[in-house]
């Protein structure tokens, strides 16, 4: 399971890459693998205010719809428009081309609630057993 070193993680399998005041967010390799072929992603709207651990997107695979929760609070400054036509990018490239949105972080201290790569790796290994 791919768990890049430069990201932070949630127990609901979202990731965040902090870049200055902003964070790029998406779902993890573990999440995309569990969901199977993704057919549609309902992304947050540009300008929407996200709250940490609350709903921000829905991922549809063939027979399931799974909610995605915001890893951090903040305003959506950019969404990945490519995913509208190519939701499979999340399956192919969960950490790169399959990013969901960029948010302007409103409370940097919330970082403390996220898992480090090592913690997340251990957490997912526990789930796989």
């Amino acid at each position, binding site marked *: 399971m791919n768990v890049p070193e430069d990201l932070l993680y949630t127990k609901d399998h979202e990731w965040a890459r902090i870049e200055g005041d902003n964070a790029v967010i998406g779902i993890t390799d573990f999440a995309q693998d569990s969901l199977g072929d993704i057919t549609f992603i*309902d992304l947050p*709207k540009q300008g929407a205010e996200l709250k940490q651990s609350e709903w921000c997107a829905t991922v*549809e695979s063939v*027979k*399931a*719809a799974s*909610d995605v929760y915001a890893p951090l609070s903040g305003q959506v400054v950019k969404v990945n428009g490519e995913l509208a036509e190519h939701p499979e990018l999340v399956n192919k490239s969960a950490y790169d081309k399959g990013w969901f949105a960029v948010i302007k972080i409103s409370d940097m201290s919330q970082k403390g609630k996220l898992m480090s790569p090592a913690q997340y790796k251990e957490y997912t290994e526990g789930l796989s057993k």
Partner: protein
Amino acid sequence: MNYIPHTDSEKEQMLDAIGVKSVGELFEHILPELRPKSFDLPAGRSEFEVIEYLKSLGRKNSSHLTDFIGGGFYDHYIPSAVDALAGRSEFYTAYTPYQPECSQGWLQAIYEYQTVICELTGLDVSNASLYDGGTALYEAAMMAVRLTGRKKIIVDSGVNLIYRTMLYTYTSNLCVEFVETPVVHGQSCREDIYKHLDDKTAAVIVQNPNFFGAVDDFSDIVRQSHKSGALVIASVYPVSLGMLKTPAEMGVDIATGEGQSMGIPLSFGGPYLGFIAVKKEHMRQLPGRIAGATVDKDGKRGFVLTLQAREQHIRRERATSNICSNEALCALRALIYSSLLGKEGFRQLASMNYQKAEFAKKVLSKIKGVEVKRSSPTFNEFTVCLPINADEAVCRMIDKGFACGFPLGRFYKGLDNYLLVAVTEKRSREEIMRFANSLESVLCA
């Protein structure tokens, strides 16, 4: 006779299995004051008695009247083939016929029904149907709320009051704000709609033809609404689409309507047929079932339910709607009806309705004291102003053998002398002449 198939000992076994002492115990979590004191059901009667009772209720109907009433539900001819085909047991007895493994016929019928609705409205995607025109309008309104994230809806008062009432009832516990705008000279009041349009408006709801029968082109309302980021929902009369500008041609985002006029008999309370069609970009917010075409593993064409992740059996509380059913049998009738007519037949049907209504207008306007309202073009229904109360005229016309129209005073204040008259393809020239003569004589009385 007891219609509950379980014996007492079977009931005991079941209660035993789940560790409950009595059936009553199953309902104990409901507060006593919320439980019904009694279901107040009459004692059982024999089959013979029940049939006689129902017949006596049926005799209260005046089914012999020549029908000039519309108001959203119309007396169109239903070809015998509709009953014959829709009554086949393969269709008639099937319940929730959605399994692709054993319901290809039904799924194909639903798919074709959706195609008919898309062809008629010009829009991209239709669902498998809804209960009736009113519930379809409610679903469209909530779609707009979800799509825009806004909660204010502008409703033209030319929209059928029955639909408006349903809309307000359904949303009474939801935070949706409605603003009603007036009809002026038969048309939606642009000035008032634009005054209320703002960045909180989710949708503008209009109807074509409106309740007074007036035909409109909402293209300007659509342009203005889109500038404010609001959607436009139009409730339309499907038969009129054989000749009128379609919702898609006006740029309307969501079209809904009552499908009764397509092969479904008039009856008090239904079952009727709600339809809804949307632009492709909005399809993920459609409520209810959608049938789709696909190919099986051998490449053969087949049909399945599609986009199911919108629905409550998957999405749970985040589903687009609590609707998990449709009016499959009524939708099938609408499909058979439309297939029998075909595109050319549909055009001819619309034209006949229009021509006959125009003829009726001409004849009625010759009666002294009767004024046919002509401020707007109409389709097969129009408003006349009478020298007496329209309710009174309706009562007098029943004695002459006519259901002569809908008294507008029942829905609109100050219109007590106004009568809404509908003329379908079923009305002959002779009937229209007799109708006018009878009206003339009751007005003189």
